């Protein structure tokens, strides 16, 4: 399928207007692209979180495809059941096609409480795509830290005060944890680079077995930026090497975008309120830059 944006925008099955996502939220961009790119309507299993809450308040639904929400930590396990049912019902002649199952959850439901369920479903080899919409915190419950929150970020559970300097720990590298399971396709993407994201969605949907996408989706109230800066903020995360765009297909690492030249990470930090307290502290910004550089070096060492 061509990835012409004009053509994609004409595809009918988008997230319906009327969802309740915040202005400047990155999640609808991701979901609309997923639904535009999917060759057939997938069955979507949604973890509890922002996306579920803003798209389905009864009796309304913004979803043009079959959609199921079970609980917070079990989207991957629930998707396992849907996928097993699809195989069983197809084998018994009760359905005529086996749709792709797509599980989608935030970083809370994926990096943290849902990690066991994700790991189990991947290990069992279910044919499904798991998408983490990563806004780097528990945004639906009021901007608390998650293990995807970067060091230094201010959240309501890592506040900044006389003794608090934001989150102390670096974030968990979930993409690498998933890769270590031996999946045939895993990738990091950003809503700012739609063509790259669309290609990765296509590849992930087309690869049999478990596949995984970790997609940076900025959160306006959580990150504290002007709503109209959504795409720019996401782009700066990539261009500063804070969020490398790469994929691992059949064990081979490939950068899918190389910032030339990379911008200093300060360019990304200074656009968001959650890092404001770092900006007057050159050492803190330096430490952050060193952390970003070390991550980049570790990733590029894996390139073949």
């Amino acid at each position: 399928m061509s990835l012409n944006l004009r053509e994609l925008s004409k595809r009918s099955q988008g997230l319906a207007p009327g969802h309740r996502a915040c202005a400047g939220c990155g999640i609808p961009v991701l979901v609309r692209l997923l639904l535009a790119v999917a060759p057939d309507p997938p069955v979507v299993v949604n973890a509890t979180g922002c996306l579920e809450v803003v798209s389905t308040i009864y009796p309304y639904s913004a979803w043009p495809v079959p959609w199921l929400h079970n609980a917070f930590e079990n989207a991957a396990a629930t998707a396992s059941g849907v996928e097993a049912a699809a195989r069983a019902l197809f084998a018994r002649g009760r359905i005529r096609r086996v749709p792709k199952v797509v599980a989608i959850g935030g970083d809370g439901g994926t990096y943290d409480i849902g990690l066991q369920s994700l790991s189990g479903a991947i290990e069992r080899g279910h044919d499904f795509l798991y998408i983490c919409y990563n806004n780097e915190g528990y945004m639906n419950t009021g901007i608390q830290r998650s293990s995807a929150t970067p060091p230094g970020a201010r959240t309501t559970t890592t506040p900044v005060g006389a003794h608090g300097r934001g989150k102390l720990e670096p974030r968990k590298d979930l993409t690498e944890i998933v890769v270590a399971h031996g999946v045939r396709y895993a990738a990091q993407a950003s809503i700012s680079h739609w063509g790259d994201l669309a290609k990765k969605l296509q590849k992930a949907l087309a690869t049999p077995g478990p596949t995984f996408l970790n997609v940076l989706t900025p959160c306006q109230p959580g990150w504290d930026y002007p709503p109209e800066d959504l795409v720019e903020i996401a782009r700066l995360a990539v261009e500063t090497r804070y969020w490398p765009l790469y994929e691992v297909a059949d064990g081979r690492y490939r950068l899918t975008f190389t910032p030339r030249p990379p911008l200093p990470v300060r360019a990304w930090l200074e656009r968001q309120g959650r890092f404001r307290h770092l900006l007057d502290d050159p050492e803190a910004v330096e430490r952050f830059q060193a952390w970003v550089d070390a991550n980049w070096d570790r990733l590029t060492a894996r390139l073949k």
Partner: protein
Amino acid sequence: MSTVVARRQGLTGNDAVALAWRQINPDVVAAYPITPSTQVVERFARYLADGEATTEFVPTESEHSAISACVGASAAGARVMTATSSQGLALMHEVLYIASGLRLPIVMAVATRALSAPLNIHGDHSDVMGSRDAGWVQLYAGTVQEAYDLSILAVRVAERARVPVMVCLDGFTLSHSLEPVLVYADDAVRAFVGEARTSGYRLLDGEGAGPLTVGPLALPDAYMDFRRALANAMGRALEVIAGETAAFNAHFGRDLPVHLEASGLEEADGALLLLGSTADVVREALAGRSSASGRIGVVRLLTFRPFPAEAVRQALSHVARVVVMDRADSLSTLGGPLGIEVRAALYGQAFPPAVTDVIYGLGGRELRARDLERLRALFQEEPVPGPVYLGVEDG
């Protein structure tokens, strides 16, 4: 009849459940092994390995994921089963409410067991009683035969009442005991359960069904209506169980009791009321005997959720004293869950029998001869508001 009953076979409770599953051949089984229900899944996996069933088996990494996968599969329109016990059922607790709230006809075998702490793998009803308000029908087997029968019956109850069903069999006492069981012909079982009447959700039916949103957020303007609808469904489930039990008995030539089994109540002055396999033990011990206060009958409930209050009131309408035997404690100081519910069911009657609640057999503690003496003596004592702990030094 000869075409319905295939043979008489020695089976443990776990074997019997697995055999029923093989005959039903559900679309999906998702489970995580836990003592003492483990062999249900082991035996079933063996059937699959031997090509005797074609179910999709999802061996999950936890009980939480097992019931989560069951919810996904059932919402997708599949006939779904699982088995668990104790801590495993406790780990499923969150999703039990989701299964019933979504009105999914999942069938679960529970080989009942104590809960930690201290760790104990033996039989009591603490696990299933912890799930009593989760909106699942709970049926309790008294024998291995009933564990088999109820496993088959549960499919029709779940799909017609549109609520999930637990089939409870006493851990080790039934799960691991070998008993002769009337086994029905595969065809007869398949004819009884029929083609799956699924959840009604058609997530997988892309042709004509249109997009379907299952499990959305519901705010105060809607949530309570869903819960009331579930309560109504549980109310109707009592009639569904009665109707399906009658159909089961007609189909298989059996005499499975509806909701409860009362024995020795004619001319009885008192009754023991309880759940599960202990009924056979106390019935044997009491047979032909009278206590100083008169004859004692035995009432055994098969249905605990929904609570068959009318049947209980009728069964106890002619006795002056009831001793309820609870194999779990509510820790409310008012007694075990069964005792509390029996008292509630009897409250407001013109001449209700006096009720004493006895907590016994926790963590597999056995009933001894002197415990049965104590039970008999209780019929002569003034009832006490709190529970009597049978077999414990200070009672």
